[in-house]
């Protein structure tokens, strides 16, 4: 039976990192109406990092360009399992920039999802739902620690640990870097 997907947002804590107080207000309003009651805010990456360390939020929503520590630098610091206790936390980048090189940079530092402004409530909901329901396996090598975004030749998540539960899932969230970029290129202004 096709049951509606429900997420108990009241049990999730969020951290919104954006230098624009208006954007933070908008995102906070959206998350609040989704049902979340624990929403931390930071106006730059440095403040965001402190909150990550002290409160371990469940999901981080971050802007890319900010004074002090920007979104890319923040993600790099978080995706370091030696120094950050919350290295696997899902990170959604919410950015006004959708150029290919910025999306690639975000992918390369270990972002989980990338979302372009203007903020779409539906897309934000979908991304949050996706990172909860289908967390990606992580890959680690000398250059990178972060979510695995590749597919194998058969279009399946690469690696031995494919989640069986995904087989019945109608949404595809795992993608090759090329597809990841391609998806966001459609948003280019």
């Amino acid at each position, binding site marked *: 039976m096709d049951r509606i997907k429900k997420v108990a947002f009241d049990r*999730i804590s969020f951290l919104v990192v954006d230098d624009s107080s208006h954007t933070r207000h908008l995102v906070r309003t959206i998350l609040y109406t989704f049902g979340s009651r624990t929403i931390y805010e930071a106006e730059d990456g440095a403040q965001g990092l402190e909150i990550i360390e002290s409160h371990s939020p469940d999901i981080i929503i971050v802007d890319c360009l900010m004074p002090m520590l920007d979104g890319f630098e923040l993600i790099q610091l978080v995706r370091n399992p030696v120094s950050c206790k919350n290295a696997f936390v899902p990170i959604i980048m919410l950015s006004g920039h959708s150029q290919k090189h910025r999306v690639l940079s975000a992918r390369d530092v270990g972002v989980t999802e990338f979302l372009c402004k203007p903020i779409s409530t539906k897309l934000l909901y979908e991304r949050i739902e996706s990172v909860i329901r289908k967390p990606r396996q992580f890959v680690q090598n000398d250059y990178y620690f972060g979510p695995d975004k590749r597919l194998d030749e058969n279009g399946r998540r690469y690696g031995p640990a494919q989640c069986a539960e995904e087989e019945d899932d109608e949404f595809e969230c795992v993608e090759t870097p090329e597809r990841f970029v391609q998806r966001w290129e459609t948003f280019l202004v």
Partner: protein
Amino acid sequence: MFRDGKLSSYKISTAKLSHGKFMSENKQGDTQVEIIVPPNPLKSKVGVSGSGSLDFGPIERAEKALEQLSVEFDDWLSEEVDLLLLARDRVIEEGLTAETQAKLYLASHDLKGQAETYGYPLITRVCASLCKLLDTATQRSLIPAEIIDHHVNAVRNMMKYKMKSTKHPQGSAVTNKLIDVVLEFADFEDKKRAKLKLDQK
């Protein structure tokens, strides 16, 4: 690599990847990686249920909340346009330095991201054009100050005269002209960059 310490409790396997690119252009070929399956406490914590269509209830509620919030949007836009004007004024006073350019870029970038939400998609396009102008120059000193000015003035006037629709005749004409000029400049800079590359070889 992270077998010791905190990652040791996670399911880790090693794989040799040989198909295609890994994470960036310069890391092709065989790459030894560790595949880590982290625990998913979030899923059990939030108790996601169902597997069918999305729950549109929260999305509709959020849309309504944004609609209620929209009475504030003109004020918010005005504040952000003021920041852009301030950044432009600093460029006029101090010239285009690394610092003044960064301020101008940040103000333009923020507006680009927000203006459409505030109901001004033309401003988003003008700011995207200004960001591109600042992004593509090979040398800061070559960025034409008057083109920066035209962008900032266009944004100010679009707000002042409430040019909201992308079909607004004057608004869209100005926007398209600014984009054309910046594309021409970017094209010129790209060619210059390509020539520099050739000369270096």
